[in-house]
């Protein structure tokens, strides 16, 4: 792989919730165009880590830079930086009072100050991308979970951001809808966008990940390319975890 500079860079980052040490001395970087998949047991700090990247959580010490801008509590740049970082949530978090089309255009129109017709053209393009162009006029509550999550992905794409974050995008979905969302994510991975994805869908991870990360108890335990990660990880804990989730 050719040399690319890190677009996300954690340097000895710590994060506390009160007395609870949620992230411990995290040092890791993501290159532009890299696709990173993070896994680990519940409560290991995966969500916390990914939410620090766009400032939904603030770290307490260490240094975090995204796209060359330092992220810290009270930063004036964070609002502008968030336009460069799309995020897809486990619970979709679509805006229930807006139609699908409005969900997609409100960011471009109000934040990026793009004209409404232009934003709508773009929104329809991305709805096409996630294979639900016919649902534009509906409200989120009228869609299935899989469709809602694909709308949420399209909403992030509409901001034309450089980085996409996914926090367990399929774990709130019924099994039969998981694949329609994963398929869209695989297609996205092929476009060369920087992706950081927390998921336990190991089939997906094998397919798209450039780098696999295993976290436990707030620490990064293992960082490896998928071939090594799945066949001979260095740490026992990582191996046990993989055995456990690959069993079923």
């Amino acid at each position, binding site marked *: 792989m050719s040399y690319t500079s890190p677009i996300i860079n954690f340097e000895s980052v710590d994060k506390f919730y009160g007395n609870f040490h949620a992230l411990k001395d995290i040092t890791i970087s993501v290159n532009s165009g890299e696709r990173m998949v993070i896994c680990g047991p519940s409560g290991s700090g995966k969500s916390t880590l990914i939410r620090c990247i766009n*400032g*939904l959580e603030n770290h307490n010490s260490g240094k975090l830079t995204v796209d060359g801008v330092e992220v810290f509590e009270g930063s004036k740049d964070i609002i502008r930086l*968030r336009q460069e970082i*799309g995020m897809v949530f486990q619970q979709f*978090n679509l805006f229930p009072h807006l139609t699908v089309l409005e969900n997609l255009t409100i960011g471009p129109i*109000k934040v990026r100050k793009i004209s409404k017709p232009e934003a709508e053209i773009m929104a329809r393009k991305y709805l096409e991308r996630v294979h639900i162009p016919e649902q534009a006029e509906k409200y989120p509550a009228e869609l299935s979970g899989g469709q809602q999550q694909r709308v949420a992905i399209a909403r*992030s794409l509409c901001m034309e951001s450089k980085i996409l974050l996914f926090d367990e995008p399929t774990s709130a979905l019924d099994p039969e809808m998981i694949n329609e969302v994963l398929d869209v994510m695989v297609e996205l991975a092929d476009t060369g966008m920087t992706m950081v994805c927390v998921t336990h869908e190991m089939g997906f991870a094998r397919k798209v990940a450039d780098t696999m990360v295993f976290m436990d108890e707030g620490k990064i335990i293992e960082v490896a390319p998928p071939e090594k990660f799945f066949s001979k990880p260095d740490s026992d804990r990582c191996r046990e975890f993989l055995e456990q989730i690959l069993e079923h």
Partner: protein
Amino acid sequence: MGYNWQWYQIPKYIYRYTDNGFQFGELMFGLWTTITLSFSAFALAVILGLLLALLRLSGLFIGTKVAVCFLEFVRNIPLLVLVYLFYYVLGPVFKYDRYTASILCLAVYHSALISEILRAGINAVAQGQWEAAKSIGMSKAQMYRYIILPQSIRFMLPPMTGEVIHMVKSSAIVSVIAVAELTTLGQNIISDTYMAFEIWFTIAVIYMIVIMILSIGASQVERRYTVTN
């Protein structure tokens, strides 16, 4: 009981036909004042209440303190004392009349209650909505304007319609500073005619009719916005 009932006298205080044709009587003018007074005060109270609610939710130390002090101040003073304060103390200082005093006083009193309704409505919106709005780069003002407030309306409307009714009822208190609203005009008529029973019954019925109309409106609103799920 020996009371000389004079119900036949009452209609002329509601309407009458004179040489100039149909005219409303005093009580109707009083009712009109009650209604305009209540609604002006309500509009002002909503603006004030929203400011207070946003201050409290701002997370700013000073903002929160100012709002909480204001709320404690208003909540711990009887409405009657607040009326006197606004008319006899603040009125001469800021040079406003009794009508303005009554609007300001009612607005301040109800803004405390309304700010709690608004705050509860804002807090009722799911946390994920804030996060989604943040993640697309919205500013705080944009989040409130486009995402949070539109969704909290449905939590706020039912208790807010209750507040309108509360406002109309509590507006009677400004009769103590002789603002010419329904209750004051009733007192005036009684001191001229001594028909205490008839006039107080009539006034009670007028309030009841107005409140019932508002309640029907409120239950319509409630039915439309009842929060499902």
